[in-house]
């Protein structure tokens, strides 16, 4: 068990190291000159050369890689070519916005997926309709869903806001940077509800495709477990069907579902970027979009690193959680 944890964490560190090597190599390929970014477009050749030496850019690639890695460990993600300020500063204000959206999306995906799975398994009559709606939703590009949502809920009904995170300015009233949580913590219920109204549309649009994937895994698991020997025994012993479902089917299906959630979290990132662009959500995705429009590779690499690290750490946690739930996994 302890060996498993150590091995898993070591492999996580190796993956993260590989990520930094990949990003460094891509940066070299992209032809961005950090010295130029530092001094600006109008600087003299002399100043450029001085900065280049100052920044250690005259060194061989391997030395520069270790400089870059050292910088990363101190939270230095280089300077953005677009804003000419540290990428880390831009991302630190954008990250909480993305976290909040991602958490809501993942939560919605779980709820929708579970409802879909249980309805399908208990053979509720309308499950077919739900399935068709969700499946076509999952086939649609996220940008189409979001735009249709805006068109209907904002344009037609005027029910939801057109975009942004809050009607109460861009700073959160509390320490976490998550509007809903901070609003509740600060006793500002109006801020929290307003933030939820802003969250619903983008979160739902990102959530549909993971919801279907999670639902499918759950359906397969539930079906197999509902007809398994232990479920039959439980029924024979007089356990009500609802309890059989909860204790024997749902619980035993959680492992595969958890893995699926880990995988889907990665796919969700792509959807987040697109949705943030459409509803002007001030998060990492919008930052990436602006960086792409400005060909600002340090900005792009910063986003990739942040999302990559989040994803890798999250998946390690999922693996460890699974082992905690079922020790047999550590042995295999």
């Amino acid at each position, binding site marked *: 068990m302890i060996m498993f944890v150590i091995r898993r964490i070591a492999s996580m560190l*190796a*993956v993260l190291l*590989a*990520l930094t090597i*990949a*990003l460094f190599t*891509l*940066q070299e*390929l*992209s032809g961005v000159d950090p010295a130029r970014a530092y001094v600006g477009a109008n600087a003299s050749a002399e100043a450029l050369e001085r900065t280049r030496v100052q920044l250690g850019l005259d060194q061989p690639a391997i030395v520069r890689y270790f400089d870059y890695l050292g910088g990363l460990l101190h939270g230095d993600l280089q300077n953005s070519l677009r804003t000419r300020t540290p990428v880390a500063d831009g991302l630190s204000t954008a990250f909480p916005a993305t976290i909040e959206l991602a958490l809501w999306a993942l939560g919605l995906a779980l709820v929708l997926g579970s409802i879909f799975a249980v309805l*399908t398994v208990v*053979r509720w009559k309308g499950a077919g309709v739900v399935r068709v709606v969700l499946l*076509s939703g999952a*086939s*649609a*590009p*996220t*940008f*189409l869903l979001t*735009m*249709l949502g*805006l*068109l209907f809920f*904002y*344009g037609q009904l005027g029910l939801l806001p057109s975009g942004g995170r809050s009607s109460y300015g861009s700073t959160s009233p509390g320490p976490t940077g998550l509007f809903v949580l901070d609003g509740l913590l600060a006793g500002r219920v109006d801020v929290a509800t307003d933030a939820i109204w802003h969250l619903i549309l983008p979160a739902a649009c990102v959530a549909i495709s993971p919801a279907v994937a999670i639902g499918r895994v759950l*359906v*397969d698991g539930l*079906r*197999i477990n*509902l*007809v*398994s*020997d232990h479920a039959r025994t439980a029924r024979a012993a007089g356990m009500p069907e609802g309890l059989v479902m909860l204790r024997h089917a749902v619980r035993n299906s959680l492992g595969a579902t958890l893995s699926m959630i880990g995988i889907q979290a*990665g*796919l969700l*990132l*792509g*959807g987040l*970027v*697109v949705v943030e*662009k*459409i509803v002007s959500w001030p998060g990492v995705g919008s930052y*990436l*979009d602006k*960086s*792409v*429009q400005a*060909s600002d*590779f340090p900005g*792009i*690499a910063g*986003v*990739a690193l942040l*999302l*990559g690290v989040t*994803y*890798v750490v999250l*998946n390690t946690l999922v693996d460890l959680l699974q082992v905690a739930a079922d020790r047999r996994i550590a042995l295999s």
Partner: protein
Amino acid sequence: MSVIERPTTGRAATKWMRMTGWRSHTAGVDAAGLVALALLVLVALLAPVIAPYSPILRAGEAFLPPGSPGHLLGTDGVGYDILSRMLFGLRSSIASAAIVITSGVIIGGIVGLLAGSIGGWVDNGLMRLTDLFLAFPGIVIAMTVAAALGASFSSALIGVAVVWWPMYARLVRGEVRSWAARPHLEAAVLAGVPWSRRVRRHLLPGVTSTVVVTASLDVGGLVVAMSGLSFIGLGSPAPAPELGSMAAQGMEYLLQFWWIPILPGLGVLLLALVANLAGDAVRDLLSRR
């Protein structure tokens, strides 16, 4: 041996699935999916012939709604003909999906075949590499690679291709290993059949149908993923007709002239749905055999 030990829960589950009609595709749906995909591909191939206007030249007044005379799907903010642009966009979507899938199958196939059939440290090394790629969030890496190479059609293709092969590598390796463990292959090894002949005659034919099924089920998702890349500006640069970038450029007109951003999105949805149907059809056809 494998016949006797087939787990009973698995069999019960299949029966259950049959009973509840989960994945009960009829031959009619299958045929419709394949025919629709063939039609879309044909339309895409013939885009230069069918398209009423050039996709990158002003064709008329801007903001004409769908159904306007001469402009079946209307015109966009510049005055480009949306139908013409969508036909070319469809063409580029289908072409890029085909290229990425092919490259993924070839690279992943070679890696998986080598790893599965040679085994030992080759297997170990190649699979570590594959796992490394799978450990990253694919879409983020694809975006980064595409951005590093500069926004263009080929950059986007390379970006997605870089993250698309590892799944195939893992799949092929698993299949190869399970085939290699079968009696006729053990016999071939003992009879001194050389490696290259074993791969060619016994392993490759064995893995092909699984790979084809997986690849055809992947097309829909790939089309959607690549349209997302194009949407955030990682694709052919502006006036080039791509469905994702068309939607992004039309976004500002969403509330007044909905058709400008929505129609290209519906184009992606249509292609993805048809590709998914056709993928299911391919799976049904190959697994029925």
